């Protein structure tokens, strides 16, 4: 008799738990979708730019010039080699 009750309790908890997990995560899906929609509508690109801007600080000008020189030299060499 006690066994039967235990089984029944287990079944109840299973149905309740699984049901609740699904309901909760469904609500979460709706919340996320809504949140994304709102955020993309009312706070669109500036956020994106601010994010990338903060993540990658502009390289110092001097290094930039050096880089350009190196790339230029490499390009020059490549073109010369492939002309023949």
């Amino acid at each position, binding site marked *: 008799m006690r*066994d*039967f009750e*235990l*089984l029944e*309790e*287990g*079944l109840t*908890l*299973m149905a*309740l*738990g*699984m049901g*609740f*997990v*699904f309901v*909760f*995560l*469904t*609500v*979460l*899906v709706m*919340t*996320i*979708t809504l*949140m*994304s929609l709102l*955020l*993309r509508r009312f*706070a669109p690109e500036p*956020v*994106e730019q*601010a*994010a990338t801007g*903060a993540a990658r600080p502009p390289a110092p000008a001097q290094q930039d010039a050096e880089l350009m020189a190196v790339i230029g030299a490499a390009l020059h060499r490549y073109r010369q080699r492939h002309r023949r």
Partner: protein
Amino acid sequence: MEKLVTLWYGSGAYNLTLGQAVMIVVGMVLLYLAIAKKFEPLLLVPIGFGGILANIPEAGLAISALDQAIEVARPAVLQQMASALGATLDPLAAEETWRATLKALVDEGPSPDQLRGAHDVAVNVGYGDGLLYVFYKVAVESGIAPLIIFMGVGAMTDFGPLLANPRTLFLGAAAQFGIFATLFGAVGMSAMGWMDFSLEQSAAIGIIGGADGPTSIYVSSMLAPELLGAIAVAAYAYMALVPMIQPPIMKLLTTRREREITMTQLRPVSKLEKIVFPLALLVLVALFLPDAAPLLGMFCFGNLMRECGVVERLTDTAQNALINIVTIVLGLAVGSKLMAESFLALETLGIMALGMVAFAIGTAAGILMAKLMNVMSKMPINPLIGAAGVSAVPMAARVANKVGLESNPHNFLLMHAMGPNVAGVIGSAVAAGVMIKYLG
């Protein structure tokens, strides 16, 4: 000569029981699995070592001052403790009977005052709480250690893939079926008379299927502390075995064509969305399931620290130094539960078997849910990522990626699988909350 005999009586070799010897070997096996086979070494090394320490005879590292005094104190002290507990010891009986009587008295649950009195007697004559016992009391019984680890996990988790494709949350939900099916399995085994698990114990065993170490430890410390050792070992051992358990099930349940499905590129997710998400989740938890608030609250806190970008020092501590410290304490504390009398039981075998079933069912449920979603919606979903719904971050996602690559070498599923993977973490925390609500 008499001194020598005393020394011999106090030695480990004289006092070692068979159970302790077996448990020391079990600890060594765990260490072997961790060191040679790389099974979740971060946890199994401390757990295995803690298990060995807990079973050193006479050292009493894993028991309280009171228990230790009962086991080894002089007869005069035993009598003092008995009077503190409000009982008298039969002067004619042997010393061993006294110890057994006292143990029974303590287990019966005397009033807090009496217990404190007896504890004070033990402390006064020089017995102290064992190191691992203190670790367990402070870190696990209070629930602190699993929660701090959860905070660290939150600080390491990137919800980007989930936010880009929120439907994958359903996969994380489906995989939690493993938890509840196993719970029912454990109850069924008890009903058939094979094992003797209560509903609380069954729930704690089921949570192994959540494939989430801290959640399992948290739930079992609340619902079934006596099974904590076996449950934690099963959870971490099977998490390490995910790359072996999952692929056969994944291949069995999917056709080659399904495994070759390529998924559409995930959209980029803005920083603001990532900051708002943990807060939104927290509000939902507060509204619907306050019992999951400790777990998910710490998780959201860790994640908010990561995404807000203004407290990098705190994030760094949460995901490195702090989580490492807590892991050491937690591992040793779990090891203290690997004591012969509680671990060497038929129930442990049952827990191991059920844990395996839990993983298998969770994986299958995730895959089947993905197939169902494929039928119902136009956006293609590769069913393999459903298997990642059983948390086990990031192992399960890597497995999904690997099996996908075997069918189509240009199909990288890793980022897509991370969605259900972190959804599984949320799902198992919610499941844990439901169980604690229902049974706590």
